[in-house]
Structure formats: structure tokens, C-alpha cells
């Protein structure tokens, strides 16, 4: 039924649901703190990490995570220590990471078709090892977000009020960036570098349009993410289209619907 008899489809469903649920959970913080482009810069640095991994013979998934964390913390550090506006910092890191990635790819021997899988993603090709790694990391990230939701939310609503009450705001900022880097790097397998921030941003943004409380926003973001993952995956199977873009377009359809719906009573 809908291809679920095939193990590749079962793995794809597990991966899509995992990301569809956990990305929007973190995505709520990304959206309310206006960090969308920060996510894009991280995904480009993950691309550089992949190129570095391929060049050095390290597992590209791991090198992507490590490099994404380094760049995320670097951006955070510069933001805290300088008077440079954050959009400028993001722009510099964004292009710097992309340029370095392209340069490194040029150093690789031969034509690398596997690079396309990273650029555009394909959840149908995800293997057991990748699925287990994604499950461990994403459940870890989700657990950290749930455990620290109170200080994270305090900081997202007002950094000053949080700091007065003794929330270690700088440490929490770096933690949020690290969690974001891990999530983006892991999710590249599903939708590729180009669309990786979509599952972080779009379900949470759609939820914000119709919510009247943070509780609703969290619940709806997760629901919209899961629905997008299911609709997109089975839609791509039925229509014979690429899974990543279909998942993203499903979430865009929900976002469009959220624009015409009034807020929930």
C-alpha cells in the first residue's frame, strides 16, 4: 500500500516523520527569533563540510555536522563581539562557506554524482545507518529543546528579562545555534542543501499565522510538519516526483492555507 511494503519506503517514512516532527519544534524558536537566514548560512557551511569529508575520506554526514557547528558558533561569536549587523555577518559566512565548498569540490578527483544527492536530497535512498544516526541526533536535539524550553523561550521573548533572572543567555544562544547546526546538517539527507531550512521555517511560520498562544504554535508547527512529511512523501510516490521538493511544496500549501484562515479561537 502506497509503497510501504518496500523497506526503502518504510525507512523514508520514518526519516520524513522524524524530521517533520522535530525540525518544526526547533523551527518555532528560529521563526520567533528571526533566524531563518542563519539556517541558510548553516546549510551552505554543511555543504562545505560534506566536500571536506569527501576530500579527507571522512564520513560526509559527520564532517557536515562538525563544520556546520564550527560556522554556527563562529557567526554567534562575531555577532556577540562586534558591532557588525547580523545580516552582514550571515551574508559573509553564507558566501564564504559556499565559495570554500565549491573550491574544495574542484579539488576532488573525477565526477561526483553523490554530491547531487547532498544538493537536492533524496529521502528514498536513505540507508539504515543514516536513519539511525538521524534518529539519535534528532531525538537528542528534540530532547534538549523540550528540557530547555523554558529558558529558550524566555530568551526568545526578551533577552534582557531572561538575563536579569540569571538565565545564562550567551551560553543558551550558542546552544541554540549548535542544535540548529546539527538539525540542518542531519536534514540535508532528506531535502538537500537548497531546501533544508524549509522544514524548520515553513510549518512554524504557518503555525504562527493561526495560533493564539505559544502552546498552540508548538502543537500546530509539529502537526503541520508531520502532515507535510506524509503528504509530500506519499504524493511523490503517487506522482512519481522528487520527494524533497514535494514535501516542501506540501508545507507551502499548508502555509498558504494558514494565510486565509483566521486565528484559532
Amino acid at each position: 500500500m502506497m509503497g510501504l511494503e518496500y523497506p526503502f519506503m518504510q525507512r523514508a517514512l520514518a526519516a520524513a516523520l522524524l524530521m517533520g516532527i522535530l525540525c518544526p519544534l526547533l523551527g518555532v524558536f528560529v521563526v520567533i527569533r528571526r533566524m531563518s537566514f542563519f539556517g541558510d548560512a548553516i546549510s551552505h557551511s554543511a555543504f562545505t563540510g560534506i566536500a571536506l569529508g569527501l576530500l579527507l575520506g571522512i564520513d560526509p554526514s559527520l564532517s557536515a555536522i562538525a563544520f556546520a557547528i564550527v560556522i554556527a558558533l563562529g557567526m554567534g561569536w562575531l555577532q556577540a563581539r562586534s558591532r557588525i549587523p547580523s545580516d552582514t555577518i550571515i551574508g559573509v559566512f553564507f558566501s564564504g562557506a559556499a565559495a570554500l565548498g565549491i573550491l574544495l569540490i574542484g579539488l576532488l578527483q573525477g565526477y561526483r554524482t553523490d554530491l547531487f544527492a547532498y544538493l537536492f536530497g533524496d529521502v528514498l535512498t536513505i540507508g539504515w545507518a543514516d536513519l539511525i544516526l538521524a534518529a539519535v541526533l534528532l531525538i537528542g536535539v528534540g530532547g534538549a529543546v523540550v528540557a530547555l524550553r523554558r529558558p529558550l523561550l524566555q530568551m526568545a521573548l526578551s533577552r534582557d528579562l531572561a538575563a536579569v533572572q540569571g538565565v545564562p543567555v550567551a551560553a543558551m544562544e550558542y546552544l541554540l545555534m549548535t542544535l540548529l547546526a546539527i538539525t540542518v546538517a542531519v536534514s540535508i539527507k532528506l531535502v538537500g542543501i537548497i531546501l533544508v531550512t524549509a522544514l524548520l521555517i515553513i510549518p512554524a511560520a504557518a503555525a504562527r499565522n493561526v495560533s493564539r498562544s505559544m502552546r498552540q504554535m508548538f502543537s500546530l508547527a509539529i502537526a503541520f510538519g508531520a502532515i507535510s512529511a506524509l503528504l509530500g512523501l506519499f504524493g511523490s510516490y503517487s506522482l512519481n516526483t522528487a520527494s524533497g521538493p514535494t514535501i516542501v511544496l506540501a508545507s507551502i500549501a499548508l502555509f498558504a492555507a494558514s494565510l486565509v484562515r483566521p486565528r484559532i479561537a
Partner: protein
Amino acid sequence: MSALSVANVTVVLGESTIVEDVSMEVESGEIVALIGPNGAGKTTLLKAILGLIPFKSGHVTFFDKRLGQLGPDRARLGYVPQRLELDRTIPVTVEELVTVNTPRRFYSHAGLRRALAEVDAESLATRMVGQLSGGELQRVLLAMNLLRDPLLLFLDEPATGIDIEGERRFYDILEHLRAKRGIAVLMVSHDISVVYRFASRVVCINRRLMCQGKPGEILNDDTLERLYGHAAAVYEHHD
């Protein structure tokens, strides 16, 4: 033992000295107004006292303890910023904003209702923060601070953007709380008539400490001219 003691505090941001060698004290049950012209360093001093901006030299103690030594009592420092830098499109309710910013040991649903009632805002609990007027939001922030049974309240021009009626209510409530609970208040203000009426003591700064004392003693044309320039003067306030 003073509720707040600030000794020789100097704050340097980048190349500029914003606050230089300022010392002052606030006792329990006292409303102290911090006044001075624009750019005098009032907000910077308040933020440095609260640990939001590092200071280059000097000491700040709360009941003879430094901020880091306060332990659980740190939660009993209240702060109402000039403007809450909150994105008004975030769908957060008043109840959620207060819950998340109140330590669990101080929070109860009934306590929240009581605190909101105390500032005339009981009908706002389920409203979205983005839909509140400036005055309503300031009263909610005051209620949020009351819930933690504060020992010391820091207010940074709390009536900015509030209409005259809202402002009068805000200060009446503040005066009532000071008298009833004996809270020590340090309040940055621009409004000399409010300071005249509600402050127990006034501290004037213009980067450095310029004067301090009771409003009736120091708020005269002479001091104000020194502080704000020759155009400033005290006008009789008629109710």
C-alpha cells in the same frame, strides 16, 4: 543595610565613558528617581546594575551581596524595561509570558490573577501580548514582577508611550505597592512632575553624579539648569 548600593561605578562602551564614578544607595521602602538629560547614561547605569552591561570599575551590592551571590533571591529583583523588545507578531498570551518569566516557586494561577488584579489588569490574562496597548503591557510587566514578591524593583521610564491617565494609574499603583509591601524602587524618569510627586529621593546624573537628595530640596531651577541647560525650570504642578 541598603537594598541597593552602587559604589564608584564606571561604564565604558567601546571608546566612550558612558557613566563615570557614580555612587548611590536605595533603601527598602524608598522610591528613588534617577534623572538626567538624554544620553546622560541613566539606562546604561540601570543595565550595569542589573548585570546586563559589564562595568569597568566599581561595586554593586544588593542587601550587601553581589549579583552572583544572591542565589535564589536573584529572582526577587524585578525589572520593567522602557520597552519590551518583543516581536508583537509572536502569538504569546499574557499568561504564557508571565508563566515563563516567573520562577516556579512563585507561580500559581491564583497568584497570577491576584497580581493582575493588583495592577487593574485581571481581564488581560488570556489576551495576546501583541494586542495590548503600551499602558496595558507595562501594567502586565509590573504584575509579572509582583508575582515574585520583589525586594527591589528597577523601572526604566516605565510610563513611556502611555497616555496621561494610564501613567497616573501606573504611578498610583506603584506608590500603593511601595507603601503596602515596602519594596525598594529605582526608577529612571524623564518626567520631573512625576518625580516630584512620587519619588522619596532623586539622584541626578549627567555621566557623573550631579546631585542627590529629596525632590523638594534639590528640584529647583538652579539644579535643573545645571543638569538640563538654561531652558529647564520647575513649574508648579496643580491637580
